[in-house]
């Protein structure tokens, strides 16, 4: 019973602060682009590593590997760009 009373008091104290939507939007924007870029960069690093490995193994296939690598990097880059668009949307509409 005592524990519940202190919890209620704590909640009432916190509820006195008003939450500014701009602040939350800014936080969301930072998180969006940060995590989005993490995933995209990781994926591109793995793809590039495998491409370099197979190019070292068979140097005569280098042209084809280059084309394949650039294609897949473009697709992964666009995922990071979606995250960027969401973060810009959050900043400029709040």
């Amino acid at each position, binding site marked *: 019973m005592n524990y519940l009373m202190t919890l209620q008091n704590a909640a009432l104290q916190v509820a006195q602060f008003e939450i500014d939507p701009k602040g939350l939007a800014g936080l969301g924007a930072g998180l969006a682009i940060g995590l989005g870029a993490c995933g995209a960069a990781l994926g591109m690093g793995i793809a590039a590593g495998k491409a370099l490995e197979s190019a070292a193994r068979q140097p005569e296939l280098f042209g084809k590997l280059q084309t394949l690598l650039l*294609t897949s990097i*473009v697709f992964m*880059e*666009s995922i990071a*760009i*979606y995250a*960027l*668009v969401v973060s*810009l949307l959050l900043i*400029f509409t709040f």
Partner: protein
Amino acid sequence: MGTHLITLKTSWWAQFWEAFVEKLKGSFGNGNIGEEIRHGILQWKTEFTIGGKDFLLTDAVIVTWIAVFLFILLLIWLSAPKKSVPKGRQFFMESVVSLILSVCKSSGMNEKQAETVAPMVGTIGCFLIACNVSSLFKITPPAKNIAFPFALAFFTIFYVIGISIRFVGVKGFIGSLLDPTPVMFPFKIIDYIIKPMSLALRLFGNIFGSFILMEFLYLVIPLIVPGIFGLWFDLADGILQAVVFSYLTMSYIGEIVEGAEAHKEHAAEKAKAKAEMKAQKALEEKTIQETEAVAAK
């Protein structure tokens, strides 16, 4: 803001240099960055009516016209007199055209189809290059407006579906939708909604993000740094995104054409296997009948 130091023994050049340095120092990181960027993102637009209908004219439309006009002049200069041994400009244009044709063929089209698709894809690529490079001259790029990439992607996906129906027919198109197994049909339908959105958002996100970053740099360090960063963000990124857009268009058309061929092959194989099984069954029945006739005798 700042005082002009006028001394008796200085030339015009020294006075000019001092005023310039003072103004430059004042403009580093001055002003409300958020407000100015927000102001830079808003577009210039005007509305007018022709014969009872309302039209909206934005700066994207005007920049598109100017960019396309200038790029057409550049292309006319590039594709000048033709000689049988190409060198210089003709060599450049011929290598570009043969590059487009080779990418089309490696996507899965044959020679004639590649020659039909190449002019359209080249036009889309040149149009996008012209529009994206305009941010190098501090003119707002048209792709910063959300409507431009979406309209282009919408039109492109209709072009892809239409040209592939012309190549392989409606039956071939539906066949490419059912290609490995018919279970994939709803996913391929959703794919045709995702593809234009992906194309549009890739172009919009890259150009808009570069534009905002360059605005920020112009406000904070207006001296030399925007020129260096602008080499990547305005020029290289714009050309790369145009090339990627065209490459993906060619890739989608090639995918449909290959899927139609593969489906036709699968259907032909299935029909052949069925016919063989039928023939074998008929042969078995015949031998059973013969043995029964022999046993009855």
